[in-house]
């Protein structure tokens, strides 16, 4: 969350504004960049990711698409193969089912199957996450689903600074990048936003490298790994834990694939305890992958059994009493961290 170079006058951006600013800057710099998707032109994106771009760049480069994802995401693969740099939005990650072939069978395999002759420099951006009563077809995360499929990079920022830098990196990346943004962090007027996600971000050009996690709070007793919203649960919990004399280090994954195992292992090598907080489904998930990656490292000695917190293996329920019962939050992180300290070997 620390800016490499603090701006002269600090600006406070929402993630939505950071994304639209990054896209606008790159469209101005690179004429091969264009944006397509549902409600992204006149409306500026349901989640504000393309605000102002239609006015600046016109309807040729900012294209409202019919509700025909198989066609326009397939078209993005073709545009990318032809040397353009399409950015495509598909509103909710829950909606990807209809166009998965274009994503995991075409975009993700184009480079490999062509032996590197044809690349696929496209960005597919989408919202993730629940917690606001929109039920199980509009509230999933699916980080691990996309992280599991080789050939795609997957990123998710926890704050505006990283959102801008990750978007600039994603557009320039020669590979397909799934750019996820969490609804609870997006800064939309009609949805609550974790205020810590609204940060400063340099006005100019900078990238946050894809594949690099960040240590956003240093500590000695345990490592808490989160991504997107769960970074904030981890930071809130770390604050409470500090009051109990427990020093938690917090790692913001920022990239799901490729996973920055180096940063995670370095932290756990120091702390000896690992807690992963994830709002995606539990099984075969990010927590499992991270814990396995740590356990596989012979240079790490764990002082306690690792713990993972995630959404249980059930569809996201609608009614708030159930949804908040199953979603991770800071209190659950604190409770797990307490167990982690008690089971010291």
């Amino acid at each position, binding site marked *: 969350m620390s800016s490499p170079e603090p701006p002269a006058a600090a600006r406070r951006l929402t993630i939505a504004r950071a994304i639209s600013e990054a896209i606008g800057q790159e469209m101005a710099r690179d004429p091969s960049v264009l944006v397509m998707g*549902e*409600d992204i*032109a*006149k*409306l500026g994106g*349901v989640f504000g990711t393309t605000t102002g771009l239609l006015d600046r760049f016109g309807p040729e480069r900012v294209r*409202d*698409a*019919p*509700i*025909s994802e*198989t*066609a326009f995401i397939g078209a993005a693969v073709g545009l990318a193969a032809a040397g353009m740099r399409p950015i495509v939005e598909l509103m909710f990650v*829950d*909606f990807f*089912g*209809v166009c998965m072939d274009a994503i995991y069978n075409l975009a993700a395999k184009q480079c490999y199957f062509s032996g590197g002759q044809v690349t696929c420099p496209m960005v597919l951006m989408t919202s993730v996450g629940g*917690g*606001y*009563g*929109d*039920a*199980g*077809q*509009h509230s999933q995360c699916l980080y691990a689903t996309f992280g599991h499929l080789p050939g795609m990079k997957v990123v998710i920022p926890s704050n505006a600074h990283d959102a801008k830098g990750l978007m600039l990196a994603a557009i320039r990346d020669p590979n397909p990048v799934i750019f996820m943004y969490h609804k609870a962090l997006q800064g939309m*007027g*009609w*949805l*609550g936003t974790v205020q810590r996600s609204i940060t400063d971000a340099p006005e100019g050009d900078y990238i946050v490298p894809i594949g690099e996690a960040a240590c956003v709070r240093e500590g000695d007793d345990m490592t808490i790994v989160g991504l997107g919203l769960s970074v904030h649960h981890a930071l809130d919990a770390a604050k409470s834990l500090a009051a109990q004399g427990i020093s938690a280090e917090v790692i913001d994954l920022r990239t799901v694939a490729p996973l920055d195992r180096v940063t995670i292992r370095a932290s756990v090598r120091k702390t000896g305890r690992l807690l992963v907080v994830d709002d995606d489904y539990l099984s075969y998930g990010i927590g499992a992958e991270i814990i396995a990656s740590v356990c596989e490292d012979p240079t790490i000695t764990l002082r306690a059994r690792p713990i993972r917190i995630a959404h*249980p*293996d*059930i*569809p996201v*329920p*609608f*009614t*708030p*009493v*159930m*949804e*908040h*019962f*199953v979603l991770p939050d800071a209190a659950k992180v604190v409770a797990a961290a307490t167990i982690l300290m008690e089971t010291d070997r």
Partner: protein
Amino acid sequence: MTRSGNRNDRLWMYATMVKSRHFEALIKPAYFEGKTPVFNMAKGPLPGEMHLSDGQEPCAVGVCAHLTAGDTVTATHRPHHIAIAKGVDLNGMAAEIFGKATGLSGGRGGHMHLFDARVNFACSGIVAQGLGPAVGAALAAKLRGEPHVAVAFLGEGAANQGAFHEALNLASVWRVPVVFVIEDNGYGISVSKRACTAIARNADRAAAYGMPGHFVAGNDPDAIYAVAGATIARARRDEGPSLIEIETYRLEGHFIGDAEGYRPGGEVDGLKAIDPIPLYRARLLADGFDAADLDAVEVEARNLVAAAFAAARAAAYPEPQEAFTHVFA
């Protein structure tokens, strides 16, 4: 149907439109509870997106007037009018939308995912994905020799989905008793039909799949009733599927909270001036219906909705642990 047609059905259509509209009218203030002064979709007794059906009632009643509980209906993310017209349990539906234990699904589904197996109604929040299941329901009826049909409702935006074209082709190839009903309200969220559809009339697309396509203008319950009646009867006679495209209007935003900046100035006022419910009342009166009869069914409809909302509000929330039940049968 002609104006001398089934008097009971016309009265039922009027009463059901009133019931649906009153349902939405009670949703609106409830939705804003807990969301003022700062609007936050997550707050209040009705969290999440809320897609109201005001203005689209004629589509629901004109079609569902011909259906029985044994017929299947699949609906969209904007399902309330269709659910009510199909006979979905009003108390269970209201309670589900409030996330209560007495809801149709015990609070697991909410407003976009209403299921009432008693009357074979289902809906989902995924565009165009009700069509395939409707074809399946129709095939089941055909295989079992049952007299039932299936109706899939969809928006005009969904007609640009592959699933629409695949389902129409499949229904025709297998000649199953299904009717596809497009509620053309002119917009897919912010994008107008004109800006994203290659042809003016989606009904014309039926020709590509060897089935009749009908366009019904004017958001007119009687005209919809007539076309739906003919196509559903045709399906019941095992003569194959049909496509109906209905010109209708959305009087509200895509969801509550939609700023609707994409609409031309004055559009909503113009649409409210042709609100189908008062227009239909005027027509029924002109056709000799007694105002007292219309008033009586209106009062009854409103009372049923009010009672459903009162019961929903009074009902208990489910136990949180109930989240873990019904994941598997």
